[in-house]
């Protein structure tokens, strides 16, 4: 299998408005891609479309993931197949403990793959190990999902869930937003520890800052619903220095 995911001419709308206007992007196993771009360029839309958010409609194009048509799969199946989104704004769910939430998630995935339910002992052991990766307090794991978590705790909790679910393709949607420099480092270290030659990462960010910690192989610039530039890590540095205006000037809307 050469490509993990291949996005071809992807168009998508929300409330009838076209946001993605022909995205082409291919990610191979083991690669880290970064997508940068100014506000409103469609970065979050792309991540939401890939994980099957019901508010978006794909109007054209296709996405082949592990050789299968991704767009045919319901959101939970995409998760079972190894796509994980670290949310820009993680959602609070009152009354549902992180433990019960993760157990439901893990067992749903195991059931999908025809594996038996995990024993309570094994599960709790796994929780402990993965928690350590992102320095997540055991108290947080006993609380309701994201309820009363600080901004940094929520982002660490996202990476903790990523560690639990062991995805093949992780999409980090503005994971750096709202993080101070220490929290950023913990989150980035967690992501790096989870990386291997079979897993890929798509980092969506405004700023170069996160890319100091999670080194991309390829950097894309998304503007006005299309990828207008693709290069190596040096592109991120150039954007940091020059801003996005020159991109806008080169690609008049």
């Amino acid at each position, binding site marked *: 299998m050469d490509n993990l995911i291949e996005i071809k001419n992807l168009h998508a709308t929300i409330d009838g408005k076209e946001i993605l206007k022909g995205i082409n992007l291919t990610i191979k196993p083991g690669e880290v891609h970064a997508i940068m771009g100014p506000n409103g360029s469609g970065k979050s839309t792309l991540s939401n479309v890939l994980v099957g958010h019901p508010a978006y409609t794909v109007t054209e194009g296709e996405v082949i993931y592990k050789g299968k048509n991704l767009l045919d799969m319901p959101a*939970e199946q995409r998760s079972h197949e190894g796509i994980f989104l670290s949310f820009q704004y993680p*959602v609070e*769910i009152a009354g549902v403990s992180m433990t019960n*939430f993760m157990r439901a998630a893990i067992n*749903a995935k195991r059931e999908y793959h025809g594996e038996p339910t995990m024993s309570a002992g094994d599960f709790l052991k796994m929780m402990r190990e993965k928690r350590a990766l992102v320095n997540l307090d055991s108290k947080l794991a006993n609380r309701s999902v994201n309820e009363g978590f600080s901004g940094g705790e929520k982002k660490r909790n996202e990476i903790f869930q990523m560690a639990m*679910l062991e995805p093949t393709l992780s999409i980090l949607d503005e994971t750096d937003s709202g993080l101070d420099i220490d929290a950023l480092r913990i989150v980035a270290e967690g992501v790096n520890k989870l990386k291997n030659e079979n897993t890929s990462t798509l980092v969506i960010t405004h700023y170069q800052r996160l890319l100091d910690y999670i080194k991309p192989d390829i950097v894309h610039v998304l503007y006005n619903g299309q990828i207008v530039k693709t290069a190596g890590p040096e592109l991120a540095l150039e954007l940091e220095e020059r801003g996005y205006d020159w991109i806008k000037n080169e690609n008049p809307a």
Partner: protein
Amino acid sequence: MKKNSNNIFRKIADKAYEYGFVSNIKTDIIDRGLNESVIRLISQKKNEPEWMLEFRLQAYKYWETLEMPTWPHLNIPPIDYQAISYYADPLKKNKEKQNREIDPELMKTFDKLGIPLEERLALSNTAVDAVMDSVSVKTTFKEELKEKGIIFCSMSEAIQEYPDLVRKYIGSVVNYRDNFFAALNSAVFSDGSFVYIPKGVRCPMELSTYFRINAANTGQFERTLIVADDNSYVSYLEGCTAPMRDENQLHAAIVEIVVCDNAEVKYSTVQNWYPGDAQGRGGVYNFVTKRGDCRGINSKLSWTQVETGSAITWKYPGCILRGDNSQGEFYSVALTNNFQQADTGTKMIHLGRNTRSTIISKGISAGKSRNSYRGLVRVSKDAVNARNYSQCDSLLLGDKCGAHTFPYMDIHNDSAIIEHEATTSKISEDQLFYCSQRGIATEEAIGLIVNGYAKEVLNKLPMEFAIEAQKLLSVSLEGSVG
């Protein structure tokens, strides 16, 4: 991002009601209609003493003067009380009247409901009184309980065997003049359970009554009386189901509980009467008066209810805290889906000194349903140091349902401390999407969220029933999202 909010919650589909079957049992049903001779006939069929008949007739005469109240936040179609049959007996009668035989079909029905009536198959540590339509068909573990002096039998049997006890307590907590349905029930009540726990006895097993409506066009009017004498303890549970039918069926019961000095009663209900279909056709009208009288000092009564069934639920299990230091508790989960309506809550009447009450109510509304909490906390002028804590939460699924809270407080003593908290929350599309991104499908996610929300109340149920109730909450919401 909100485009599909209506989409996700849009479809109101038939929910799976797994108890909707009808059993083919030969049933002796009296003619429809209500008048004095019907009441005499019921009393005669049950071979009742004169005082019981008088009790019924008095109630009937009073009922005739009443109109059905209209104050609840419910939309109740007119009920034709002459179109209902007031007595249906599924037991075969042998030549000798005493030896009534149980139809094997009837045994099968209760097996199917998960309530085996053979003691060797019974739920662990639970005695059951099984009531179908108007008659108690069997009570298990009666003999074992009797050895401890505990009486657990049908109300009909109690009237025959323990008339003095029944006469002493019946109507002493819920008077026939209490309300419209209390008067109706007092006139036509058929069967139900009677429990007496003697002084100093801790009942060694759960007692439970399982109510089943089977016959069509009948009403079920049972009456339960529980007396916990000084220093005794009992945990009692009732469950209810009914077949799926297009017409509505009336269930108007009375439960009376007497709690003496230092005694404790836990009363749990898992109510799953047929709720009607997705279009709002059919379903049971569950209009029930439940009240306990904590007469003794240090007495304690705890109501726990999980209400998922019935087209309309209208009831307020309450506690009269008469004894000094007595305690009342009310834990409730009321779930409404499709076109179901519920107006339920409690009454805590503080009369004695140092009385305490706790109210935890969790409403869950889905579909186009309407769900109201209505509760009264009254502190009389002599009730020194009364304390009440009330918490009323509402959870909404979708934007076509309604949740309402009507708390009443009537405080006549300045030493009272009364707290009331209320919250309203919604399961959002964002929460459901977050779950599905983590691999948890929407229906499972709703089950997870609802059970998390109701946990505080479910934890109060006896263990096995808590697990059943959890499943029930999830099943009752099936089809509430598309």
